[in-house]
């Protein structure tokens, strides 16, 4: 656990002149870590990084504006931070980033599926990591699972495991899992016909309870209390309990993230009814990448594509009438 100790040392050092460092600590149950706001040495003792460090700490940055804040970041978290900086929503010199090489994070839904109804993830009493496996103590005995089988989907297409923009990097940089995101999940989805896709979204969205956890977990949803979904003027959404309004909220979220979404997957993870909402955002990301060669959160000096234009757009083939 030397990396863990090295990160703790870096946090302790950062706390000498920064009031708060955001990272992860032990959660309410062994499978979950929770965001941890460290302000003194005792807090740092609770710090944990690694396979359980799921949450994206960039979520808290817009509310920390004006106060120097330090974050412990994975590669994907660093991209969210990068996008916030590129849009001037947070100031880079108010941030101190502590990076470490991320080898993937857990997806508790996948653990639940692997436990096959023998027990609930909440009944797991202990989790131990052993190289590429985790060992779970359950009421029915030990269960050994390979990390790669229960890691989040985004980890299988990770291009940036290292927080490249970190001020201090602890540990040795890892090689990217893939060089290019092929959007295989979207290609799979697009095997469906248009009618089947519509039916798919109707079925998925019918489960939506409009809790807006997807919005609240999104590090780039910075409007917070001023979200158009809650506004009466304009009145985009009614209170009707239909698929149309539920889907329309997802379209608001997806269009507002077009060219900004870094694919951290927090929206989909936060969804209590398992709607694949990240697919909508990835559909925009793929187009933005193809059309403008832009990947959100990588280069803070490039203007996001929808905030600028070119007089001639060679990539846009307009219709001839």
């Amino acid at each position, binding site marked *: 656990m030397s990396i863990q100790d090295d990160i703790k040392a870096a946090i302790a050092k950062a706390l000498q002149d920064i009031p708060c460092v955001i990272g992860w600590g032990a959660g309410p149950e062994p499978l979950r870590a929770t965001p941890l706001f460290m302000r003194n040495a005792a807090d740092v003792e609770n710090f944990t990084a690694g396979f359980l460090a799921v949450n994206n700490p960039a979520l808290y940055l817009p509310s920390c504006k004006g106060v120097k804040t330090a974050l412990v970041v994975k590669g994907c978290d660093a991209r969210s931070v990068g996008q916030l900086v590129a849009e001037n929503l947070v100031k880079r010199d108010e941030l101190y980033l502590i990076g470490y090489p991320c080898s993937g994070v857990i997806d508790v839904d996948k653990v639940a599926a692997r436990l096959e109804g023998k027990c609930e993830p909440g009944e797991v009493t202990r989790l131990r990591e052993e190289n590429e496996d985790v060992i779970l103590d359950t009421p029915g005995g030990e269960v050994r699972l390979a990390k790669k089988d229960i890691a989040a989907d985004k980890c299988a297409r990770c291009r940036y495991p290292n927080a490249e923009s970190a001020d201090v990097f602890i540990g040795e940089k890892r090689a990217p899992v893939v060089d290019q995101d092929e959007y295989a999940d979207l290609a799979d989805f697009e095997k469906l016909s248009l009618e089947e896709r519509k039916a798919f979204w109707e079925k998925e969205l019918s489960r939506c309870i409009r809790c807006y956890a997807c919005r609240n977990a999104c590090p780039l949803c910075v409007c917070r209390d001023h979200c158009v979904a809650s506004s009466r003027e304009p009145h985009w959404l009614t209170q*009707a309990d239909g698929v149309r309004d539920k889907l329309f909220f997802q379209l*608001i979220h997806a*269009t507002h993230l077009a060219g900004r979404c870094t694919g951290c997957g927090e929206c989909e993870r936060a969804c209590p009814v398992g709607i694949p909402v990240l697919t909508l955002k990835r559909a925009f990301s793929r187009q933005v990448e193809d059309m403008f060669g832009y990947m959100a959160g990588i280069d803070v000096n490039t203007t996001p*594509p929808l905030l600028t234009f070119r007089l001639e757009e060679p990539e846009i083939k307009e219709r001839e009438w």
Partner: protein
Amino acid sequence: MSVLNTKELRIIGFLCNWCSYGGADTAGVGRFTQPTDLRVVRVPCSGRINPLFILKSLLGGADGVLVSGCHPRDCHYAEGNFYARRRLELLKGFLPVLGIDPRRFEYTWVSASEGQRWQHVVEAFTAQIHGLGPARGWPEAPELEILNAVAR
């Protein structure tokens, strides 16, 4: 292609005040006959058009949506249509993911003097939408559907 020989469909047009709305006016003044399926919404600039306008129309039951603004480099506000072009192009590519045929949405540029072009655009787009037929709607809230059934 008028209401007289086929069922009229609902097509929403978002037209910028300075060029395309003027173009449609020119077409009217010139008495160029056009299909009557298009309902025009006048907006200050194509840059004013939030892609959500189009999505809301399509989800709300429109069979087609047409957006028209000033030609690139001719925007009354200098650059509104440049921003619009990027947004609308992304939106068009996004529609198939929802299961909406991307041909139900088109955007184009028509200047205030191009009455004839406006007539052509409306005719071509209306024919395209009639070719696709009425859009299949999205379910309303269950309780609204019951109310609607009672009302019928």
